[in-house]
């Protein structure tokens, strides 16, 4: 290796300072999580592990499981809806269809969680679009309760995570050479069979990447479960906010965040490990 020129140190300085700031902030969370909560005060007491013990209480354990379950459902339904779009986007030869899918599927990515969640509130509400439509055509006689339910939250979360899933799946699909499919069909496989035995397995890395991202996004989503769940759907994110800003119990909010972070890391590592044999499929 050649000797490093002097500017290297200066070029690294801003990045090091940023990393330092982030590390200290995360250590502060860790430090708060092992301090005692003094009700009615922002100051914290001595060192204790009580916060982590309290995490095992029903309410918080349920919120944890509920968050994982919501993330799982979101990732699954998101994948089922995103894959056909991504596939058509990459494989279609019709230019207008391609632009159409790109604009429609990708625009929501740049709209932010609040705008998208708000639009689902008007769709799902008791006098909202969906209920008005179903009542008008006589499919139901009283409004369906969709707001403040898990179903409503999952619907909106699927919609929120779809653009990024479509993007990641499409990136993965675009790297698969169409020649493989053509070879299969020329040897007599139906297009459907060629898809099932060639394209689908080759696109597994993209599937894993998109599911992982959907999982992480759902886990940290706040506006959607808070506004559509309306306090009746508890997730780790909404609990941390309530603990911090309603009860001012920052030590416990910190403990909950740490536990959530630990769980994210474990789940993502497990997902990566489980799918490792699959990830080499597309490499040749």
């Amino acid at each position, binding site marked *: 290796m050649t000797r490093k020129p002097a500017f290297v140190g200066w070029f690294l300085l801003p990045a090091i300072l940023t990393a330092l700031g982030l590390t200290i902030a995360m250590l*502060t969370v860790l430090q708060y999580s092992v301090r005692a909560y003094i009700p009615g005060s922002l100051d914290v007491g001595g060192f204790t592990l009580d916060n982590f013990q309290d995490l095992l209480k029903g309410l918080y354990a349920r919120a944890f499981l509920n968050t994982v379950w919501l993330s799982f459902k979101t990732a699954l339904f998101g994948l089922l809806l995103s894959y056909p779009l991504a596939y058509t986007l990459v494989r279609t030869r019709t230019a207008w269809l391609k632009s159409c899918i790109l604009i429609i599927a990708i625009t929501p990515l740049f709209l932010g969680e609040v705008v998208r969640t708000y639009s689902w509130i008007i769709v799902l509400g008791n006098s909202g679009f969906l209920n008005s439509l179903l009542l008008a055509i006589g499919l139901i006689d009283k409004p369906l309760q969709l707001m403040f339910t898990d179903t409503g939250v999952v619907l909106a979360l699927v919609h929120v995570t779809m653009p990024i899933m479509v993007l990641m799946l499409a990136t993965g699909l675009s790297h698969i050479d169409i020649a493989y499919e053509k070879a299969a069909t020329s040897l007599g496989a139906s297009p459907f069979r060629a898809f099932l035995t060639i394209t689908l397995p080759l696109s597994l890395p993209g599937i894993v990447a998109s599911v992982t991202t959907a999982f992480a996004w759902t886990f940290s989503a706040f506006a959607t479960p808070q506004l559509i769940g309306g306090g009746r759907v508890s997730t780790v994110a909404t609990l941390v906010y309530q603990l911090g800003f309603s009860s001012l119990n920052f030590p416990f909010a910190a403990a909950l965040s740490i536990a959530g972070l630990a769980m994210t890391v474990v789940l993502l590592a497990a997902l990566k490990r489980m799918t490792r044999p699959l990830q080499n499929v597309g490499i040749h």
Partner: protein
Amino acid sequence: MTRSTRDRWLGYAGRLLVALILLFVLLPTVVVVISSFSSTSVLFFPPKGWSLRWFERAVSYDDFRSGFYSGLIVTAWASTLAVVIGTTLAIVIHRYTFRFKAVLEGILLSPLFIPHFTIGLGLLMLVAQLNLGRGYALVIFCHVVLVLPFVLRSLYVSLQNLGQRVEMAAASLGASPLRVVWTITVPLMLPGLFGGWLFAAILSFNEFTASLFITTQRTQTLPVAMYNYVREFADPTLAALSVIYIVITATLLTLANRFLGLGRILNVDAPR
């Protein structure tokens, strides 16, 4: 049924499926657009009358105006700083090895999986403990941390596509390493720099969860102001603001698609 008819039916079914999914994606947007022109403050479908009053209210509401300006300040600073920090780091990481390189890179990429509320909470508790105020500096630092991984990614890609030959030519003609960086590397990276900046700016302007934890009435960004509005009022003002948002975003994306080829930028075009 012969195979070719079956395949044709599968093709029709596939097209129908794609159309239905696109309908699902479009549905909330269409509903928001309809609601924004409603004349009543309580929403009905179909609306009982039409008006533009919610658009007037959306652009004149004080919290939205101040949120918009705070957002612009934060976004301009955060995305510019992130590009500067990202570029210097990417150049050094791409060319040299040094101790703790993996650690530094790992920390800076970690916001990709650390939930935003955790980062917001950490920064909030940090300034509380140090008795510092919650000003713009805090919000800007937070946004730099959150958008930096995305900036770094797009810069790595443009550095990889750069090729070292021009740089080596300049160095062999006697240019100092720093001069090579300034006169060759950075100018060649400009498209990547601009792309990274734009991406960072969009993400920062829309960031909500971490901002909710660390902003105050004075520094609250537009998404936070919008969130507070939904919690207090149920009228269609936010629908009108959403429509403005959607129109601007869709216009920018359509232009980007027409002139730059969105498929190429987003890397989803199949090799042909």
